[in-house]
């Protein structure tokens, strides 16, 4: 695997749209060619070379390409967005849309990310070694398909509207979340190690949410239906199984109604 190292040499005045910073766009390019790739700052198109020092050539394919980014990326949007293979490591906090629409590969952010990250993520591994903002793994505005595959891990806390319209994949959050976790969820699995503020699983159709901590206010549409012993992300414990959201429509499978499940650790 070939490694391309980007080092931020100039922090943009406005926010830089780094749609080209991913293994798919870099594949088969030399450091010089990468430096000439475009990046928008408002309506003005600049080159990546103006903002980054670029060392190393990319591999022949995305899968053979690793990108390491050093320096202050807090004003960089779309890093690793739409990547399908390869690896990206960012040693900084990042702005919006980091890892959004990613389909494969491995993305690691050693810092915080802003809102709208992992939006409609369909595959791959995304690890955030910091906190995440709002709309993590949610759907794009107006879309009914949020995160649908892959594994998303957050070491810190996440904001509100996390995993809205989630349809598949696994999301593991070690810290706490704010309001609206898994709203409109239609599949997939959320493991929350910390506490949730309120409105967990509102309008949830299908899918599973595991909460290790507390929920400030439980949604009225959830009903306890027994206790189960489960192993969740390496932890064995007894969980109370709530079915819901009983206010929402639910599909039928083989004559039986399919409900979503909210497991609260005892």
């Amino acid at each position, binding site marked *: 695997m070939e490694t391309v190292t980007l080092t931020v040499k100039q922090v943009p005045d406005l926010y830089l749209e780094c749609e080209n910073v991913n293994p798919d766009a870099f594949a088969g390019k030399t450091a010089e060619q990468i430096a000439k790739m475009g990046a928008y700052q*408002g309506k003005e198109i600049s080159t990546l070379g103006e903002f980054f020092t670029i060392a190393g050539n990319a591999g022949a394919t995305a899968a053979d390409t690793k990108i390491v980014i050093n320096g202050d990326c807090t004003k960089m949007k779309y890093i690793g967005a739409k990547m399908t293979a390869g690896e990206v490591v960012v040693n900084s906090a990042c702005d919006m849309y980091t890892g959004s629409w990613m389909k494969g590969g491995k993305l690691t952010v050693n810092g915080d990310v802003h*809102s709208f990250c992992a939006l409609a993520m369909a595959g791959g591994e995304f690890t955030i070694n910091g906190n995440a903002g709002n709309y993590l793994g949610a759907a794009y505005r107006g879309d009914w398909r949020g995160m649908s595959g892959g594994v998303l891990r957050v070491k810190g806390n996440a904001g509100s509207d996390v995993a809205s319209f989630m349809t598949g994949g696994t999301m593991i959050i070690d810290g706490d979340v704010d309001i609206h976790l898994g709203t409109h969820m239609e599949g997939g699995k959320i493991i929350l190690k910390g506490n949730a503020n309120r409105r967990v699983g509102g309008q949830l159709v299908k899918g599973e949410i595991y909460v290790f901590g507390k929920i400030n206010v439980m949604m009225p549409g959830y009903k306890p239906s027994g206790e189960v012993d489960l192993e969740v992300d390496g932890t064995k414990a007894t969980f109370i199984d709530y079915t819901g959201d009983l206010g929402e429509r639910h599909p039928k499978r083989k004559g039986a109604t399919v409900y979503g499940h909210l497991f609260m650790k005892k």
Partner: protein
Amino acid sequence: MPKDVTDVICPFCGTLCDDVVVTVSDDNKTILSVKNACAIGAEKFNHQRLPGRVKRPRMRQPDGTYKEVSYDEAIDWTAKMLVKSRKTLMYGWASTSCQAMSIGHEIAEKVGGIVDNCATVCHGSSLIAIEDVGVPSCTLGEVKNRADRVIFWGCNPAHAHPRHMSRYSIFPRGFFTVKGHKGRKIYCVDCRYTDTAKCADTFIQVQQGFDYELLDAFRTAARGEALPDTVGGVPKEKIYEVVEELKGGRFGIIFFGMGLTHTMGRNHNIDEAICLTRDMNDFTKFVIMAMRGHWNVTGSGQVLGWQYGFPYAVDLSRRDQARHQTGETTSVDLLNRNEVEACFYIATDPGAHFPINAMISSSKKPTVTIDPHINCTTEISDVHIPVAMVGVEVGGCAYRMDNVPIETRKVVEPPEGMLTDEEVLTKINNRVDELLAKGGA
């Protein structure tokens, strides 16, 4: 001799009352009196004759004072600012005509601006919910003629839309609602006992920030499922009772306002209310409508939606594609994050409504305001271009809160030499063309 102008459209709120009678002076220059309008609407017309109106553009001087300049000078300054800035916020539009908006959008496409309207601090969250789950709605005429279950959720038309209740929602006798108020059951859900609540048959006092839970409880009850003893401070018996009454109606409507859009969860509250409306259609006819504020904010959503597919916060910085993301391309976020280089405000007053930090950020950028009046925003602008009042001194198309287009009427002549929004924007557009042809500012 003074004369009456009848069937005037009131350019104040989203109700767009169309039965106002305005008496104007013989020379067609002064409004003498206003009939049929509410107190706020009448004031909008009466503003026209107030002394001290700014009649020519003003430009900020190095010492901080304003100096009168010509329209051409102000337009040239504005066009240069728009062409130079890499990202411009073009906010407002809610109190101008759809024709003016469309010219503004043409400018925005050329200069890569971000077009946003007052929905961003008002019913924007309703629009997000509509993007997410759609909306079963109707016209206000249908409400007047058919509705027998009317819910006011988190809105207070008695103060914000004063003639709404008498023209459409509570008191009028319609084709199928011949008994008027007596034939309707009125519900008010609010965290306070408002003046609208005084007109309601049933008042449900919800704990602040518990609308989402209560709406979910209504949906759960409609499906016949069990509920906890109380939800948001409302006993479950009350919830079951109201749901049964709603199911028993022939035509139900939910009107909602800032109590849903600007409390915890915002768009999710509307989303849940729309889903409740959808669910109630399993039992009877049910619709939902946003109580839009500014008289033509709906029009801005319509024009933007028709041209770009998004109703507000449309980012045209890529010129060949429109992008929209509430939280990113919305005015307050753009200003708070310092994501724009210049501000262009038209037909609204963000200075009076935006959070202070956003306006502090705005005040540090080149700013142009196009507005008939002196307001909080003109005080932090570099250029203030006064224009004729749309709906009073010039006509134009507007959309009522139920998305019905209504052509507003000119009642009096604007002050001599004063341009309209359309004229100013056309001149800016032409100047932008000239600058771009020369290769920039």
